[in-house]
């Protein structure tokens, strides 16, 4: 059990718009100054700045289980858990990176029903995934999408969101994620 735990977090957003730099003409005695027109990205004129924020949250020092981070959910990290024959392909001996496979079946990040304090999910694969906060509902909606390499993080409001409600599924092709999901 940890003495105490907290999570610092930050979000940044930059909206840009494609613009065109007009061609320039002119010359000096020894040089041609002309340039062809070209496209470039600039900060969106409706925003005109980088957006973002940061904060931290105290989370329970005793988490709901080892699976509160995908990095510690590796089931073969204890010697006594190894059940692989020594002379077979060593799939279980490589403890991996903590990535969780995402396919066409929805993956519930945890069945623990504690109040959720903080969740971070990153798409570590090559294909988009989508996220529900209503796992187990009759017809859950998937309001969030994560493109490859993208991430999302959020704090739960009051006691309204529990850990067992978070689910992830692929959009069209398989992918992988890493996550942190902490109880209050």
């Amino acid at each position, binding site marked *: 059990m*940890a*003495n*105490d*735990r*907290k*999570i*610092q*977090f*930050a*979000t*940044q*957003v*930059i*909206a*840009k*718009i*494609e*613009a065109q730099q007009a061609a320039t003409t002119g010359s000096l005695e020894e040089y041609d100054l002309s340039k062809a027109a070209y*496209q470039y*990205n600039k900060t*969106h004129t409706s*925003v005109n700045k980088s*957006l*973002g*924020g*940061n*904060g931290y949250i105290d989370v329970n020092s005793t*988490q709901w289980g*080892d699976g*509160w*981070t995908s*990095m*510690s959910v590796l089931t073969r990290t204890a010697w006594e858990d190894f059940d692989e024959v020594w002379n077979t392909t060593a799939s279980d001996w490589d403890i991996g990176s903590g990535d969780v496979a995402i396919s066409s079946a929805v993956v519930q990040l945890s069945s623990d029903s504690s109040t959720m304090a*903080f969740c*971070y999910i*990153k*798409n570590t694969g090559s294909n988009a995934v*989508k996220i529900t*906060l209503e796992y187990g509902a009759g017809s859950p*909606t*998937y*309001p*969030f*999408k*994560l*493109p490859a*390499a*993208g*991430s*999302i*993080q*959020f*704090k*739960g*409001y*009051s006691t*309204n*969101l529990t850990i067992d409600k978070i689910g992830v599924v692929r959009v069209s092709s398989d992918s992988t994620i890493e996550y*942190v999901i*902490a109880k209050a």
Partner: protein
Amino acid sequence: MATNDVTVTFRNFCVPQEKDSTGARWYLDSDCGRKLSGSAVLTGEMGNTVVYEDSTSSFPVDLETGFDFFYLKCVSGDDIKLSLDGGSNYLVSLSSGEAFASYVDSSAADIKFDTTGTSTVQYLTIT
């Protein structure tokens, strides 16, 4: 890309931390072991309609559906609560200074947010 096409870069960064047994210092959480971050650029997945509000203090704000990207920051004041089903359930919270951003499903995310007291927020939608 054509002139006026919109792109958005969004990144999240989090650092789980654990206090040592003496209570003297914070370290990277030993269950996680590293800092976490993810960054993506959305290009061509969205339309070009950008709505940005730099300072809003009138609540609730009901954006409904139809967005491809959503950003919200609680600039100051009391916590903000965010609903993704039109206000039936508020599931996400933002305290002063914190921000939330996500690529969203334009038909599934029915966005509404409200204050728990008195707040000022900043938000961005791209359709």
